[in-house]
């Protein structure tokens, strides 16, 4: 027996430990990044699955609706009037416009739907949920600014300044001492029965304020506990909801009129310039149609090509060249396929722009090499003894392939195909080249109507400045990921379910 070299053994153990450590580190890092990505997306995307509306009692004005054509009624006017009626104190065009800006431009849809469904309610007053605008929605979800409300602890005296618009606030003391005593800071809003003021700061020894909501001139002193200090973390100039709008929304919220519900609209509507009205239905249908065209083309072509190359083609220089080029095609950047689609399908064949048909053609070309390679691998994995057995009992080559080899290779082929489709589903670049990147509000009705796809929708939304679209983007990403995970899960299931062992 040879002498045991302890140093070598120790070295080997150390090397094994090191390798395990590297592996575990790599795995942990990957898991961490994935977790960060998913958490961030989910946190950003969850708000987009909910929408906010306000319950309004609306009188369906017979003067504005023709019972024979209820769709054409001026419902916008009715809900705006009803909303203004909620806030009778709001006067002046600017303020009223600020008030109705809280409602979505599609806010009347629910009322229109009710009247169309039941025209007998014309002339009656109904309670209807009216969708709020994206800004109001974001504010109520706390995504524009955080807001704290503290009750006033001291008595507050309010004096109107003569000759200029503004107020002086005093407690028992004046100026900076008053600021301290009352617990106020510049930008804070003082809310009391009959009005609201925003503190601007100490000026000439006085604590000054400007009106946010119209104030009742009769109110000059408010006792402790009868007023609130509302402070926002983001200054008014940096957010899309003004102080007065914020206070109106607060009021509605306290009355329990604000309703937060699951946004089916997100799955039922097409794209829109208004974030609260935008949905992914159009993109989903577009994706579906595009992938349908792609699969209808790529699957039979790919499998047929794979069977021919693997089982029937003579092995010579030409098939070698074809094989190398198929492998090369799988490595071609996807945007090149977009250029090809643009040059061939749009410019040469004159097919319609932005159409799922063309998108599907391009994606079919894109996934064809993937499907061929996966199918060939699956066919190659079937043991030759099966072919021999079939040939041995007098099956022809074609019978052996189609009755024995192909059924055994099918799970592998399906797995490869589904993974190829998942790639097609998530592909953006080639579709940009053939015009599927346009703003399309309609849900595509066929293979030649203008459409966009889910990843392109994500791309489009991510480009928009509105804050509300940021969560729409994240929500669309969530939907995209769910679809892709489902496809991958299907691939794994197929593999496990139909896998055969020899």
């Amino acid at each position, binding site marked *: 027996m040879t002498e045991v070299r302890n140093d070598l053994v120790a070295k080997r153990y150390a090397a094994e430990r090191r390798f395990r450590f590297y592996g575990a580190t790599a795995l942990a890092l990957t898991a961490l990044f994935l977790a960060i990505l998913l958490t961030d997306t989910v946190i950003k995307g969850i708000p987009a699955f909910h929408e906010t509306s306000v319950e309004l009692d609306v009188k369906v004005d017979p003067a504005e609706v023709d019972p024979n054509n209820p769709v054409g009624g001026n419902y916008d006017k009715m809900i705006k009037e009803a909303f203004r009626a909620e806030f009778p104190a709001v006067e002046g065009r600017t303020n009223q416009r600020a008030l109705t800006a809280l409602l979505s431009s599609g806010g009347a849809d629910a009322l229109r739907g009710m009247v169309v469904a039941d025209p007998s309610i014309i002339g009656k007053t109904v309670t209807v949920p009216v969708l709020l605008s994206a800004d109001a929605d974001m504010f109520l979800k706390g995504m524009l600014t955080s807001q704290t409300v503290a009750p006033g602890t001291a008595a507050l005296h309010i004096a109107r300044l003569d000759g200029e618009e503004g107020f002086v606030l005093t407690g028992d003391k004046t100026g900076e001492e008053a600021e301290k005593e009352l617990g106020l800071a510049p930008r804070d809003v003082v809310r009391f029965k009959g009005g609201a003021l925003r503190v601007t700061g100490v000026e000439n020894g006085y604590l000054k304020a400007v009106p946010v909501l119209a104030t009742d001139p009769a109110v000059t002193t408010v006792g402790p506990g009868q007023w609130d200090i509302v402070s926002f973390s983001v200054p008014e100039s940096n957010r899309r909801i003004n102080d007065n709008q914020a206070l109106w929304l607060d009021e509605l919220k306290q009355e329990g009129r604000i309703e937060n519900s699951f946004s089916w609209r997100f799955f039922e509507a097409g794209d829109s310039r208004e974030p609260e009205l935008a949905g992914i239905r159009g993109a989903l249908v577009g994706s579906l149609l595009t992938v349908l065209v792609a699969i209808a083309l790529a699957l039979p072509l790919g499998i047929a090509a794979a069977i021919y190359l693997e089982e029937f083609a*003579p092995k010579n220089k030409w098939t070698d060249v074809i094989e190398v080029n198929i492998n090369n095609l799988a490595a071609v950047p996807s945007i090149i396929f977009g250029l090809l689609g643009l040059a061939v399908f749009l410019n040469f064949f004159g097919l319609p722009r932005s159409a799922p048909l063309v998108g599907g053609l391009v994606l079919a070309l894109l996934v064809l090499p993937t499907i061929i390679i996966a199918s060939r691998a699956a066919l190659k994995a079937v*043991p030759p003894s*099966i072919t021999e*057995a079939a040939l*041995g*009992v*007098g099956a*022809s*080559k074609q019978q052996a392939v189609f*009755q024995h080899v192909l059924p055994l290779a099918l799970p592998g082929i399906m797995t490869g195909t589904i993974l190829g489709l998942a790639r097609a589903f998530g592909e953006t670049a080639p579709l940009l080249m053939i015009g599927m990147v346009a703003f399309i509000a309609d849900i595509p009705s066929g293979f030649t109507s203008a459409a966009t796809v889910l990843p392109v929708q994500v791309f489009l939304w991510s480009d928009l400045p509105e804050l509300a679209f940021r969560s729409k983007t994240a929500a669309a990403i969530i939907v995209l990921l769910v679809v892709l995970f489902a496809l991958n899960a299907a691939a794994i299931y197929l593999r496990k379910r139909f896998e055969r062992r020899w």
Partner: protein
Amino acid sequence: MNAPVPHQTLVTPEKPKALASGQFKVTARGVDVYYGDKQAIKSLSIDIPDRSVSAFIGPSGCGKSTFLRCINRMNDTIPTCRVTGLIDVDKHDIYDPKIDVVQLRAKVGMVFQKPNPFPKSIYENVAYGPRIHGLAAGKTELDTIVEQSLRKAGLWEEAKDRLAQPGTGLSGGQQQRLCIARAIAVNPEVILMDEPCSALDPIATARIEELIDELRQNYCIVIVTHSMQQAARVSQLTAFFHLGTLVEYGDTDEMFTAPQEKRTQDYITGRFG
């Protein structure tokens, strides 16, 4: 090349007893087989009688399996393989372009080294051949063929209650008998066996050997084996291959007791191989 060659008895000077009596099922004249540039079989001629077992023995790489696979043109599936010379089955040249290779393989069945049942039910394994050749008119007829084939292969008693279960679930020896049943089911006249017992344990081997002995009554059987004991046990005729040539072919008893060639003797006594 395809010109008819007069049939003659090859092994000289004395005709073996088995050859003298039987009708020749397979005859070969001047067969050369090449894999690319390499010649695997050199100018081989042989007469194989019907209703007997002929064993091919010889060291690895001597061409015995290659020649076996020529008899049902299984070598056609290897692109680089080239066969010249004449091989007749029932006095029909099987390399004649007019011969349908599928029909030939139905007539010349094959059992492989490793049991290779289809990953289907036992019933389907046996029924596949008759079905593609249209041997059964209906379900009952097919059932009969399946039962008879399994009976002939000695598998009926073990398999009759589990015909719907996958053939791959059987034991190795049972799988090989299933493969034999599958080969019998298409009514072949010749059965080629390429080391059918090399993957089996001694008990399963003994069952297969018994089976081969029974099948001899109805078929012309050619078996390639590495086991000289097996050749001695099951065959009436033995052919010794060495380096791509047929060294000696004759009655098994004589071959193992008094071989005419020194190389045969050296191989049988274990001096090389």
